[in-house]
Every structure is written in C-alpha cells, then in structure tokens.
C-alpha cells in the first residue's frame, strides 16, 4: 500500500536552464541545467552560462498539516489544502487525524485516501490516531490502518496522558511498522494556559503554559521509546528544555526525531503583546532562549524537520478576544519565505540547511521517498526567487483560511514554481 495519495496527473517535460541548483542530499550548490522528461529527471548537466538568479531545489515535505477534512471543509479541504501546499513549494504533505470524525478506523482512512486520489493536487499522506476518537483510552487498530496506508500514528492536538498507554502504543506500533508521533503536553501543568509562562504572561495576566509542561512529557516519552527501542517522533517542539532532553536521548542512542515550526523559529512570546489571535497556537510562542535553542537544534540536526502545523480556522473563530480564540495558525504558503527572511538572509541558517530540513529531513522521519535532483529520480522540484519581495495579505492565500501570523508582513524570497510527482502543480 502506498503512503501518499493524489490525483494521477500528467507527467511533464521541462528544462531548467542555467539555474543555481541547491540539493543538500547531494551536497550540490552550483549552476546546472536540469531536464525533466515525462516527470522524471533525465539529465543534470553543467550550465552553459552563469546562473539566472533563481534557485532550483528538491521540493518540500510538510510532516504536519491540518486539512480539516472530514468535518470542517469550510476551513480547508483536500483540494484547497494541497493547492496551498503546492504554492508553498511542497511535493508531499502529511495530514493530522484530529478531524471530525477522527481518523481512527480503516473506513475513515479509506474514504480520505479515495478522496485524495480524486482531489489532491499534490500527494498527501494521512496519520491515524493512536487512540480511538483520540480519547486517550483504547488503541486504534494500527496494523489494519497501516495496511490501508496510514503514514504513522498520533493523537496530535492532545497528549496521550497515561504513561501505560503510550508504552503500549510504542510496543504495538512495531507490528504496524509505522512510527508514533507525540504532542507533548502535561495537561495539569499547561492547565488551560494560552501563553508561554514567563514575563509576558505575568504582565498580560494570562494563565501560563510553562515550557516544562512540554519537556516533562518529552522526557517521559523518550524514556519509554528508549526502553521499548521504538522510533518516536516529537511534534512541534517549542521549549529549550525539550531540546536538551532530545539531545541527551539521541546521544544515548534512542531513535527519536523531532520537528519545529516556522513560527517557533521566528517569533517569541513578545509577539503576544499585540493580543492578535493569529499569534495564538499550541504549543505557545516561547521565550527568546527557547527560540535560540530551537535554531541551534535545527542547525546541528538534533531537530531534523520543519513542520508548518498548518492549522486553518474560520474567520469568525479568530475574530474574537485573544483568550477565546482557538489555537493554530496557517503556514503552508509562507513557510519558506518566512524562514528565508528571518533566518537565512540575516545569516543565521545556511540556505542548504533550511532546504534540507524542509525536504529530506521530514521525508526520512516517515520513510517517504527523499526528493533529490539526480538522473532517474521522480521530479519533485521547487524553484525559488530569492530576490522577490512580497506582502502577505488576506488575498495571498489559496488556503480557505487566512489566519496567518504573517498578515501585513513583507517577506523576502518566494516560491515561483513547484513540481510534485513529475507534474507542475504551481507556477507563479
């Protein structure tokens, strides 16, 4: 059974002439001419002239997207979410199972994979729930779900609170052969908090959601993954304490991976002073030492993936007082530009590292084909204009929702073309 599902489209033939190719999987950053025939890379030749100012790279993979389908198709559906992903430079995305109904049975998953084959503009994979209804009590039928194409298992949106249950999930997932991904939040410590516990929450009066609410669960789950010798993926890390736990665990040989979001890499809880509901997310924006630790972890590979945690919300859900607003922001269409503007241009993160963490890193975590630019590989390519400057406004999005933390921002660098599974899926 495949793990990615999408429309079987045409296979395009293309030529990228004299372009700067940056492919971290091959350690390449040079001017080349790349030809694609019938959706497959047919030749990679030295350029005959200086590069033309654009960059060609392996297309991105987003391991953490909320497509809101089934249940909230008014916020996003398979077609709009994958169109948004295509515009963001992605050739594959993974959807989270916290839908209505929850993706916890073969029938719900089967309906989704069939719909994706009809509607998805780029290949999309689906994670299934760890527990039925994400209720934190009974395991889902993981083996059957894996046979029907589940890319992994997660109760994302909420933690698996009982330690005995997450242990069983780690054990049983071995039979399914798919990884378990965890949203780390100790609920009696996060305690209904909306904002990182720190100077900003103290000043604004928010109930704090402390960084230890994440890191104690990270430590617990890493210990269990080590004990069971099972791969464990940590979703949307936000706290420096969590990074330290992960670093220790990996040094001890525990097969753990982690992802971080563009908003946690770019913002701190200082942004919450605006009381704009579009900077409210779970986990919350944290302090600058947390942001710095996440960037360090991204640089040294402790965190190998960037995940948008694209979480569309209807306009009326976010046009409320901050404290009433739901958690979550969109991100598919702005991830590259935001990170290029905030991390690459200022010289904090090399371009190649960013491209690796947005493509090969997440693909490896879930065992997806790693996009690469070499002869014989399926064309999964993104063309970037690093000199482009654009303003983010509500009209910028293909997503059905516009709850972006970047509304009103000026960004540098932009995706101008995306090729996914051999087909041009986006061209500016």
């Amino acid at each position, binding site marked *: 059974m495949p793990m990615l599902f999408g429309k079987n489209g045409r296979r395009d033939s293309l030529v990228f002439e004299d372009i700067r190719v940056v492919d971290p999987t091959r350690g390449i950053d040079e001017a080349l001419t790349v030809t694609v025939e019938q959706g497959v890379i047919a030749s990679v030749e030295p350029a005959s002239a200086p590069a033309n100012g654009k960059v060609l790279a392996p297309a991105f993979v987003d391991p953490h997207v909320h497509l809101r389908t089934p249940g909230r198709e008014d916020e996003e559906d398979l077609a709009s979410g994958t169109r948004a992903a295509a515009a963001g430079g992605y050739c594959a995305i993974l959807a989270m199972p916290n839908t209505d109904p929850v993706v916890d049975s073969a029938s719900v998953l089967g309906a989704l994979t069939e719909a994706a084959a009809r509607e998805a503009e780029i290949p999309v994979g689906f994670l299934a729930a760890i527990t039925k209804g994400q209720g934190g009590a009974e395991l889902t039928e993981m083996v059957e779900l894996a046979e029907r194409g589940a890319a992994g298992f997660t109760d994302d949106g909420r933690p698996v609170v009982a330690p005995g249950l997450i242990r069983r999930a780690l054990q049983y997932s071995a039979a399914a052969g798919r990884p378990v991904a965890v949203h780390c939040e100790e609920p009696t410590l996060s305690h209904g908090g909306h904002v990182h516990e720190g100077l900003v929450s103290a000043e604004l*009066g928010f109930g704090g959601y402390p960084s230890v609410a994440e890191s104690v669960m990270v430590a617990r789950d890493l210990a269990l993954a080590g004990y069971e010798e099972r791969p464990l993926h940590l979703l949307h890390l936000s706290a420096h304490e969590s990074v330290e736990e992960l670093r220790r665990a990996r040094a001890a040989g525990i097969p753990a991976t982690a992802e971080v979001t563009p908003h946690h890499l770019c913002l701190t809880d200082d942004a919450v002073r605006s009381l704009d509901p579009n900077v409210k997310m779970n986990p919350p924006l944290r302090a600058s030492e947390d942001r710095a630790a996440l960037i360090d972890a991204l640089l040294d590979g402790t965190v190998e993936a960037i995940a948008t945690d694209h979480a569309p919300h209807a306009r009326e859900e976010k046009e409320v*007082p901050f404290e009433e607003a739901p958690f979550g922001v969109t991100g598919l269409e702005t991830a590259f530009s935001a990170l290029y503007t905030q991390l690459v241009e200022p010289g904090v993160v090399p371009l190649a590292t960013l491209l690796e963490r947005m493509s090969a890193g997440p693909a490896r975590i879930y065992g997806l084909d790693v996009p690469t630019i070499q002869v014989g590989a399926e064309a999964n390519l993104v063309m970037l204009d690093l000199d482009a400057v654009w303003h983010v406004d509500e009209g910028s999005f293909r997503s059905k929702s516009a709850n972006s933390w970047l509304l009103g921002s000026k960004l540098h660098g932009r995706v101008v073309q995306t090729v996914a599974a051999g087909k041009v899926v986006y061209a500016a």
Partner: protein
Amino acid sequence: MADVRPLLRAELLPPKSSARRHLISIADLTREDVERLLALSRTFARSLERDVKKLPTLRGRTVVNLFFESSTRTSSSFELAAKRLSADVMSIKSSGSAVDKGESLKDTLLTIGAYDPDVIVIRHAHIGAPNLAARFSPAHVVNAGDGKHQHPTQALLDLYTLDEELGGIEGLHVAIVGDVLHSRVARSNIQALVLMGARVTLVGPPPLIPRGIDAMGCEVSHDIRDIAAADVVYVLRMQRERMLEGANYVPSLREYTARWGVTPERLRPGQKVMHPGPMNRGVEIDAAVADSPESLVERQVRSGLVVRMAVLYDLLTQGPVEIKVAEIEEVA
C-alpha cells in the same frame, strides 16, 4: 415654500478627532499622559463642588457602556461620569441583550457602531476584548476590565487617591497583598505606580504571585510582615472560586486568612489601606481595617467618578494614547 436643503449625513455626525485613541492598558501611557489625566481629574473634582454638577463639555457625544461581566462601581461611575459631562449614555449588559441569543462580540460591536458612538467602554471576561472593540468599532475604546489583563481606570483612580491623600506618588512605597496572579487591578496598578516612581512590593502566597512578575519593576515577598515597611497597603480581593477544593492555590481560606489576611495587628499606625472592592471582610481584610480611618476605600470610589470624567474628556479632546501593536514586519 421654503427651500429645504437635504441634510447630509456627514453633518449629522459629531466632529471626528483625527486619530482614534483608546485606553486599553496602562502600558500604553506615558508619565505625561498620567499627569495630564490627574490634573484633569482635579479640575473636574472642583467642578463637582458646585451646586449644578453637570458640565456641557461632551454635549452631543455618545458613550456606550458594554458590560459583559457584572460590575457595580465601575459601570455606575462610568455612567455618571458621562452624564456629568452631558454626553448621551447607553448601557448594555450581556444578560437580556442579543449576547444571550449567541451574538458574537464582533457583531455586537458592529451593531453598536451603527449608532456612531464616540466612546465604547467595555468590560469583558476575556483578555483582548477591548482590542477587538478597537478593531471593529469606529469609537474610542476604554477598557473597563478585560479578564485578568488590565483595568486601567482603576489604577488611575488609585493614583489620584494617593496623590490627593498623600500629596504625591513619587517615592511612595506600596505593598500589594493577595492574589496577584488573577488580578487585573494588580497588574494595572504595578505598571501605574512604577511609571509614577513609586516602589511596589507584592506580598502573597507563592502560587498566587506569577513567575517573572518582578520584571515589571516590583519586589516580591511571601511574608506578610513585609507590609510593615510600606506607606500604603493595597489589599486585593480574594476570589472565592480560587479557594475551591482542588484548585490548590492555597490549601484553604482559613490558612490564607491566617497567613496573609490584613489585620490591625499587621499594620503600623498611620499606614493607609486601599482595596478595589468588593471586599471579603474577614478574608483578605479584617473588618476593623476596612472601617478604620486609615482606610481609603470610600475615597477610591469617589475618585472613580472624576477620573473617569477625565478619561472620557481626554479621549475626546487630546493626548497621545494609542494602542501599541507589536509589528512583525521587517524583522532581522
């Protein structure tokens, strides 16, 4: 037949001031803003000594009080303040309004906005409601309390009270006692007092003093004996729901009162005592303290009227009060 010119809608509207200004947080004010508001309050206090207490200043202006949370002193003092200035006042409470029928705050604001109010005074249980009001209404917005965030007019009336009673704020030492964590009054007062050069010490049980709050420029103590060093003891209301079994902020009301209740024995002679009300006598404040000559509680309520007159007048006439929006644009 007389020549009747059609009335233009623009002529029916009151003159609009150039920039819309709001009072959402003390953090948005400068020391000059506060001094101007206190001076205005003194002016209005003198005007209230006259037989006819009504001033024509805001005639033709409309003030809407939107109270989504119960309130006696704040809503009544805003209403009276607007009336003393001859503004038209409309007071809307959440119960009995369309909010009962599930109307969103945004829609309520758009509805009210259709009447072209000059000022919207809003109290709401959730942080950020006044910011939403500023976004979706054309009026000047005054925060009359949003969740645990801010209650700026309370802090201003407390400053005014201190200024009048003690002849100045600079250099005063104020101990704020009790549940700081859940108190918008505490947060607004810390900012206001620090802004005006007072020294602030927070005293209370450790779980009720937020981590990191000393960054606001105050000191923190968990020992009630430390109130003895202060010129003024500001007692916060202890909300009973925080005391429910299992909340575990403090083990019991009994233990709280025994350790942190403000009693005559814990006060020095001459120390002034303040409380934003409503008081829980016998819990956070001993009845003898509440009724003592050193208590400024009634004075605070009186101050509320003139300070709110000053705020309404100031917003509609002058002064650089703007919401600060943290801009994400062009970082790095």
